[in-house]
């Protein structure tokens, strides 16, 4: 018997590159509402040099002005344009921003109003106004900090800083900087902190990566997405259909289902031994079923996210599929996170670039010429 088991193990040990993961997914609740929509093409009219948007916070309503936030790619200035008139609303010159050589690179910005701009760098959070005057500053990621022994603070990409004026706290992503990213310990660490601006105290929130990530390895598909609105911090992850909610007012946590009907299979897992195999990791990233960040539309009080179904490794011609071959599904949830509808997009989009205005939901469209500034506005009517 032992002999047979040994043979079985030998034969199985190298025959699979990917493994199927198990899932703790919750059922997706269906909303009573319905969606109708129209689309309209839009071209951004900003100057060519202003192309680098600030991830996660492209559009803000500040003092009742719809402001489109950009960062000038060439000189590093932060610029806010009135989205309707295209006039410049404010500009914070690079020379007025905190020094990158001293405090490290920018990784997040939040504009609460024109007098309160929070800027996060590697070693400092600064509160400045549009003229660059520093109003408050907090040292972060300092070796003397108890927190830094286990967790670093900073937006790795899709969890930008957020300020809640009601409790005077800043919310920002955290991660175990000593943990290797293929090890379960990285995924068991806390992913967000709250910083009390009055006391300067930092509190680790209980949210971690979901069990799916703690038990399996997904290579590059390990983003932490966090959206925030008046009361909720909304966490989501690329291979997990579930959506994780933290109510800042009540302190309660809740998990809801958010699976797309277009998801036909679970994401394959990688072996932790493939941690350095970048070719396999990028191929895996390009073809697995993939959920994008949950966004909140404050103008119509709904949540949305994009989903991309999995692709086969090769197409009908025997050539390799790539990320740009992906189809995208727009999922719309009501304020209770019940799924209203799913819209299969017909054109190619870069769905990481999306935001809402009173006009509708903007998504960055891609054409064959790779022209910049192309957006489709989805004008969504929920009934």
């Amino acid at each position, binding site marked *: 018997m032992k002999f047979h088991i040994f043979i079985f193990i030998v034969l199985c040990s190298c025959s699979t590159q990917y493994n199927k993961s198990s899932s703790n997914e919750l059922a997706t609740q269906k909303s009573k509402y319905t969606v109708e929509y129209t689309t309209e093409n839009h071209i951004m009219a900003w100057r060519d040099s202003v192309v680098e948007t600030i991830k996660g916070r492209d559009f803000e309503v500040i003092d009742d002005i719809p402001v489109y936030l950009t960062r000038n790619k060439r000189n590093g200035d932060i610029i806010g344009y009135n989205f309707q008139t295209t006039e410049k609303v404010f500009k914070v010159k690079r020379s007025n921003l905190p020094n990158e050589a001293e405090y490290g690179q920018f990784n997040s910005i939040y504009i609460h109003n024109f007098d309160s701009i929070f800027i996060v760098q590697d070693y400092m959070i600064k509160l400045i106004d549009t003229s660059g005057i520093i109003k408050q500053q907090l040292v972060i990621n300092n070796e003397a900090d108890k927190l830094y022994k286990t967790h670093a603070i900073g937006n790795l990409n899709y969890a930008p800083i957020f300020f809640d004026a009601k409790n005077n706290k800043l919310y920002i992503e955290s991660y175990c900087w000593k943990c290797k990213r293929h090890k379960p310990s990285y995924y068991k660490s806390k992913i967000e902190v709250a910083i009390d601006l009055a006391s300067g105290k930092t509190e680790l929130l209980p949210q971690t990566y979901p069990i799916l990530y703690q038990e399996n390895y997904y290579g590059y598909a390990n983003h932490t997405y966090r959206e925030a609105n008046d009361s909720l911090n909304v966490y989501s992850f690329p291979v997990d259909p579930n959506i994780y909610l933290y109510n800042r007012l009540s302190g309660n946590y809740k998990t809801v289902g958010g699976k797309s009907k277009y998801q036909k299979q679970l994401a394959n897992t990688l072996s932790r031994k493939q941690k350095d195999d970048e070719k396999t990791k990028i191929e895996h990233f390009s073809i697995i079923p993939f959920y994008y960040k949950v966004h909140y539309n404050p103008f119509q009080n709904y949540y949305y996210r994009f989903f991309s179904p999995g692709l086969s490794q090769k197409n009908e011609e025997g*050539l390799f599929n790539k990320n740009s071959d992906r189809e995208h599904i727009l999922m719309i949830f009501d304020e209770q996170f019940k799924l209203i509808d799913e819209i299969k997009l017909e054109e190619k989009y870069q769905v990481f670039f999306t935001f809402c205005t009173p006009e509708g939901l903007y998504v960055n469209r891609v054409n064959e010429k790779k022209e910049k500034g192309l957006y489709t506005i989805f004008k969504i009517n929920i009934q």
Partner: protein
Amino acid sequence: MRIFILSIILSVSTTICDNKNDYQEQTDYLNKYFQKIQYSKVADNQLIFVMQPNSCGACSKESVAFIQQVFDGHDTPQTFIINGNEKIDFLQAQLQQLPNSTIIVDSTQQIDRYGFLHVDDALIEVKDGEITFMESIKDETFSKLKRRYKR
């Protein structure tokens, strides 16, 4: 008898597992790629560098400096495939200084379709018409590549 079966199973599984140096499929795809882009100057022995100017993870300046340092004196023909549409002027200006170099600009990133999807710049070594070695070009592999190619 058991030992005999076991030895057969082990040798078969070793053959299946030992795909580290088996680049036959990649060689076939590389040839298909060159046919597709109608590149006729394919040498039996060459070093192919796939540069990733669009990839945020790739640090072109560092890897270009490394390539210049290590491969400047090589006789082996060097083909640089610029896989993207950014930093083309910079890369062309730097890489054409190397002797024996040919530059291909693949602005629509066709090579990805042929199984050479990389985040970092990558080196493909071809000997007698077959791929014999592939490696990413980045900080972690600099010393390994230097040992293999530095003269």
